[in-house]
């Protein structure tokens, strides 16, 4: 009988410091048991509980794409006790991963459409997963044009910069990477994400938008999309809330009749319009 609370044992196979302030690191995990790697079949937008025995668990979006083989990546911001402990761990250390959890971005249901992908800060992780998934030849041909809009506070806080340059050079993908203000040696866009979206004015025709970012970014991006003529059922947002079980029982992430961990984390704006803002 499957125990949904039992994490798969994993070993840290790589650790990368991602940002200049060292608050973000990317961890690569390998499963101790080959069969667990098979069982851990996921989609872009899902998350998992990173589980450190003796400290606890923390729900983190999966940064890698299933198209990358067994490479399982999480980019983790150092915040609470679990993530602080994780930042102190090194290659070879054993811990647990429990998942995959939640729903995912509705890509399969929106074949043939253009995509506008909007990310803010370190919430970009599951959208990195999405972008990598979309680069896969099998998937790329199924979608139209892709606009990828991503903002961070400073150039030093941008995640996955090298990869984004590679995406840019492939057909049909436009990357719009912005930082909050002017910086020396920064030639890219400046300004907050909502302002960049407003300048780009992405067309809603035959398109969906995927949005993941801090609450303040989401709050100010929504009216911009509204102004551009986007309908609520074209916009998909990924939420976060405090979680424990991750499988829709323990009640912690409950918002209205939905559980962010199981019914989400991805909701259409149409769904969120019917819910209290308890996230």
């Amino acid at each position: 009988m499957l125990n949904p609370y039992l994490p798969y044992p994993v070993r840290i196979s790589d650790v990368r410091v991602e940002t200049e302030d060292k608050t973000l690191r990317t961890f690569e995990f390998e499963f101790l048991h080959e069969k667990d790697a098979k069982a851990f079949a996921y989609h872009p937008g899902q998350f998992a509980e990173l589980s450190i025995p003796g400290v606890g668990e923390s729900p983190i979006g999966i940064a890698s794409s299933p198209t990358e083989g067994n490479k399982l990546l999480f980019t983790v911001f150092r915040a609470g006790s679990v993530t602080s402990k994780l930042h102190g761990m090194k290659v070879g250390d054993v811990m647990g991963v429990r998942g995959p959890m939640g729903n995912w971005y509705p890509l399969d249901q929106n074949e043939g459409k253009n995509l506008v992908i909007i990310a803010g800060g370190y919430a970009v992780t599951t959208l990195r997963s999405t972008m990598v998934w979309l680069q896969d030849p099998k998937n790329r041909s199924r979608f139209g044009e892709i606009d990828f809009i991503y903002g961070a506070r400073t150039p030093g806080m941008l995640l996955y910069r090298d990869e984004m340059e590679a995406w840019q050079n492939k057909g049909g993908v436009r990357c719009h990477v912005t930082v909050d203000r002017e910086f020396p040696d920064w030639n890219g866009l400046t300004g907050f994400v909502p302002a960049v979206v407003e300048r780009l004015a992405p067309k809603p025709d035959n398109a969906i938008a995927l949005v993941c970012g801090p609450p303040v970014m989401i709050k100010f991006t929504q009216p911009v999309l509204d102004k551009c003529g986007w309908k609520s059922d074209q916009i998909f947002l990924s939420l976060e809330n405090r979680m424990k079980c991750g499988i829709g029982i323990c009640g912690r992430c409950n918002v209205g009749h939905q559980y962010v961990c199981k019914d989400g984390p991805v909701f259409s704006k149409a769904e969120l319009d019917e819910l209290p803002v308890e996230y």
Partner: protein
Amino acid sequence: MQYKILSKDSLAGFVEALSKEYTVYAPKRDKKVPNKMVWKVLEADETPTFEFVNTEMSPKDFVFPQSECMMRFKAEGKEAMVLKPVEMDTERRVLLNVRPCDAKGLSFMDMIFCQDEQTNDVYWRDKRERTVMIGLACNNPCPSCFCLEANCGPHHEAGLDILMVDLGVNLLVKPLTERGKSIAASLPDAEAGEPERAAIIKRHAEDAMKKTFSTERVEQRSLMELYNLPYWERVCETCINCGTCTFVCPTCHCFDIQDEMPANGDTGRRVRNWDYCMAPLFTLHTSGHNPRGKKVARVRQRFMHKYKYIPMKRGGEVGCVGCGRCVRLCPVNIDIRDVINAMNAPDATAEGREV
């Protein structure tokens, strides 16, 4: 359905037979606190009491213990930092004289703990399968009961293996599951007229219950309309935000998972504990942001969850069985029936004070 009969005189023998295969628990009068009924093992020479309203705590603890060790791990050595599930205890138990509301509570929670392949709580399911439920119908519901309004009833059968109705000298035994049938198999068949007497008793019990609220408008109103009622400020004023209502509730099931690394020894454990939506830290994000930081939001959450969110999600089923424990034990006597009435009031916006 073959009704059986069990005379109270021969109860000792029935319990003894059960005790061969099961540990038999029944509501007993507590030795420390006056008039408090607690779930305890029925000893060999004991017969259960039939003169009680209900136990202070619901029996959910048998299936969903307040603290439950889920996994253990070693900090060092081979397989260090790999969590291993604990071995489940194997006690097979009978809950004798469980009230129908509490049985319905467990069957309600089956729906939450075992939703599908992914959400299938092995800790819950294992204990649930090992627990036989022999119910005792309520012939005399108390003033804080409102099971009929909560889609339950004094003779409700959900979640039970057997329902017994107290006919005075005898108990009418109605087996409801295969397991119940085999337990009752050796009992004599009921005589003609006895099931009819039980039906009259049931009707009297239901008639004795005053209808205290209805939920038509709660169903019709949108989630956000109910959420935005000014009334919530009024309930919140006197709520002390303790966890009593949730802990005594047979359907409240929120929990926390905690790790413990003992200072001595190298074995740590992962434990789950009951938790409650009234606690400010329940929803606190690591960033410091709290989606339900205000007391009014937490108070609203409990009632909305039970009577709007769960029905929306679970085909109209409410997250309440009307046992009345929260009414009786709330330190400030916040009465869920008043709250539902306010949610259901014709002009809901007129209720309470604008703030």
